[in-house]
């Protein structure tokens, strides 16, 4: 753990880590946090992306980090969170079907795929398509939905107005919904 912090700290003066370096770090952290969280709980667990990202940020984040490092972190965290959630859902259904080895160490699972699980998968699928088409807007979705960032924060990152992000978000939602509807 402290190694991660050292890495982050040492990277700071030269202007921050690149996303690709940060991602595995964040991913590992989030994964272990998620596992720990679920290990503590009984059945019917739903992962709370917001809480997890928060935890990870507190552990890995550093108030001295320059703003664009923070940006990187959250972008990475959002990606990581998305992957974790999707993996988990897939795993759950795989186990339900009796195949595969759990990626995460799970004690108990809820057997029925909840509405939330399905939603995650659907969004993930749709988002993958949107990313090819319109990566800017897809990023907003990722940051907002998986990373738990506010419109204001995203606006700041991109150097645009909050209104712009709101509009992107509105568009993204409509488009993703259409994908999802059409796919099923």
């Amino acid at each position, binding site marked *: 753990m402290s190694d991660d912090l050292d890495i982050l700290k040492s990277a700071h003066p030269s202007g921050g880590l690149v996303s690709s370096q940060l991602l595995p770090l964040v991913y590992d952290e989030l994964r272990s946090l998620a596992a720990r*969280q*679920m290990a503590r*709980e*009984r*059945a*019917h*667990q*739903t*992962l*709370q992306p*917001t*809480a997890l990202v*928060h935890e990870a*940020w*507190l552990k890995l*984040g550093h*108030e*001295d980090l320059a703003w664009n490092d923070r940006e990187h972190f959250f972008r990475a965290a959002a990606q990581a969170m998305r992957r974790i959630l999707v993996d988990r859902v897939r795993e759950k259904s795989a186990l339900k079907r009796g195949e595969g080895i759990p990626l995460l160490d799970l004690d108990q699972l*809820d057997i029925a795929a*909840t*509405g*939330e699980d399905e*939603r995650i998968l659907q*969004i993930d699928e749709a988002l993958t398509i949107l990313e090819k*088409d*319109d990566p800017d*807007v897809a990023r907003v979705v990722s940051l907002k*939905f998986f990373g*738990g*960032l*506010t419109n*204001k*924060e995203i606006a700041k990152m991109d150097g645009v107005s909050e209104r712009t992000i709101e*509009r*992107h978000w*509105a*568009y993204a*939602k*409509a*488009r*993703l*919904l*259409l994908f*999802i*509807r059409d796919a099923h």
Partner: protein
Amino acid sequence: MPTDLDPSIPLERLLFEAAAGFSTHEERRRFLDHTTAGDPDLRARLETLLAVQEEADSFFEFRPHEGATRAESLEATDLDIGVGRYRLIERLGEGGCGVVYRAEQLEPVNREVAIKILRVGLESPEGRARLRAESQALASLAHPHIARILDADSFPDGRPYLVMECVHGTALTEFCRLHHLPLQSRLELFVKICRALQHAHQRGVVHRDLKPSNLLVELHDSVAVPRVIDFGLALELDSRPSDGRDLFLGTPSYMSPEQASESPLHDTRSDLFSLGVILSELIAGPPRHLPESLGNQDIKTIRLAIQQARAWLPSKTLAHLTPEQRADWANLLGLKESTLIAACHHELDWLVAKATQHDPSLRYESASDLASDVQRWLDHEPVRARPHSQRYRWRKLIRKHRVGFSAGALALAGLIAGLGVATVLFFREKSARSLAERALASEAQLRQRAEIRSRVAEAAVRVHYHDWTEASRWLSGIPVEQTPPSLEAVHTNRAVAEWHLRAGRQQQADERFLAMAVALARVDPTDTETVSMDLLPGATAVCRSGDLQRYDWFRHITLQRFADTHQPVVAEQVLKGSLLRPANSDLLDRLQPLAMRVQNALENHQSRTWRDPDLRAWSCFALELLRFRMGQDEDARNWAELCLQQPPVNPTCPISARIVLSMIARNQGRNEEFELLLAEAAQEAQGHLDDIRELGGTQSGFWFDWVNVQLLLEEARTHR
């Protein structure tokens, strides 16, 4: 299809975002007609997208309760904090010291909260103990204009957290702008905010990060209600984190110079500085005394800039606007440009100047002092020019004993002056340093007083939620003579008293009024009309109880307290309240200066007294009453006549005047006239006196106005 757009921006998105922005279907249709002419597929897609927006919104909603009903779902990954259990819903934002989430509390009660988690952990056990003590103070803040702190402590790993009431409001300056609040309304809001801060300061809590975004305004039934939020910075942090990080907390534009120094030194006066900047902003627009580029500099530069800068007075800010901007601004405030500028030069500038003095000891003593001065400006009364001599002495004492940030200071300054015996109550002493130098009471007394204070606080919360029975219970446990000298005690006792009154429980009502009177007479010396408004009901209740000694005591204390009031309205209240029964020459002498004030106000056609028919009538009556008590019958008659000439507003005024007039007639030997006038007045009053339960108002007469009529009637009848 139009091709002169940046090809990297997807056309569909561009058109969607634009189309979605139109407010009518007609406009949207026309837009699409024009932009998608010749591309029906594009048009169809856009229309579909636009149509599914609502569904999309609901699909993407953050869903805290997935998967199970309340009964089964407790086991989800919620945060366990203290005795509560919370489900994070969304991040509201991130500040310099932590992150704030909107959350749903599941246990023990279900409600929406905001949770702030600070990023800096406390490393030492002492730090955490301090934090817990501070949290007590925070949690004890119970004021309608402060967002309640529901819980405050730290996680096992040392990170402090705060659970607070979730406030959905608009930032102060934004609210003012949106609702086109005129200058007067803005300042009225400001006064409320100051009073809320006073409440916190009295309990030893300093905000440290006051700025418009921490002052949210809610609209309750078209009344603007300010809520101070984010006392989070008030949580004590280790002043020197072990890894040598430089701790900088606060918002530069609103920070006082002493807050920005290397070893920050601040108390309530730092909050006052911030309030001063906010005041200036309400009057003249956003603070500009720090260079714009400062945000990108390193911490050291920022510190230096804040320490060296001088806050701008409103007229300076205005002067730096372009003529156009100035005109727009004045328009927003509903004033002529010249009026605004003149107002700044006369007194508004001065108010801000005193609040934002570089030297903290030169600022206002307390938030309520600042509030009072602003209120004076609003009431067209002269603002205070120099500090009270007694306070100056205290200030020197405070400066001598000021404690620095590292020892975990709570507010000391500004609360001491004028409290007399009760001084010690408002100290929160945390170090082992002896109280001998400052304490005037013994340890046991302190404890008792603290306990009493918390009873009042409890009652106040109950009053806020209209839980009258409980509020009454809390207050009844306090011996009347030991009612603490706080505005809170005044208001809670009054509220409960009036509740008893409405239910017909006169004795209990009078008890509460008595307690209110005790508090009123000793509360800190803010010379405002609001405080004096409680005076008359208090006097009436005490007088009615029949205990002449108590009434005497009450009017003596009142006089002591309000003797040098500059406000004619207050003077008039004091006169009326003190003369419900005959008075000795000593008391009458002491009332003379007050009578002069009232008289002067009547002669000054600019004064509020003159301009308000209700005040005019009552002022004449007050003078009639005084002259009558002094045995100056002819003068009294003249004033009575003047009173009766005024257009009737409050019916009790002419009735009271006539009763006194009847007594004057009797004094002068004109018994027939006496009987006549008395009978007339009694008849008029009859219907109302049978059942004085309604609290009444200016137009129908307040309950205490009617009781005063009753008292006067009694007096007239008994001396037959």
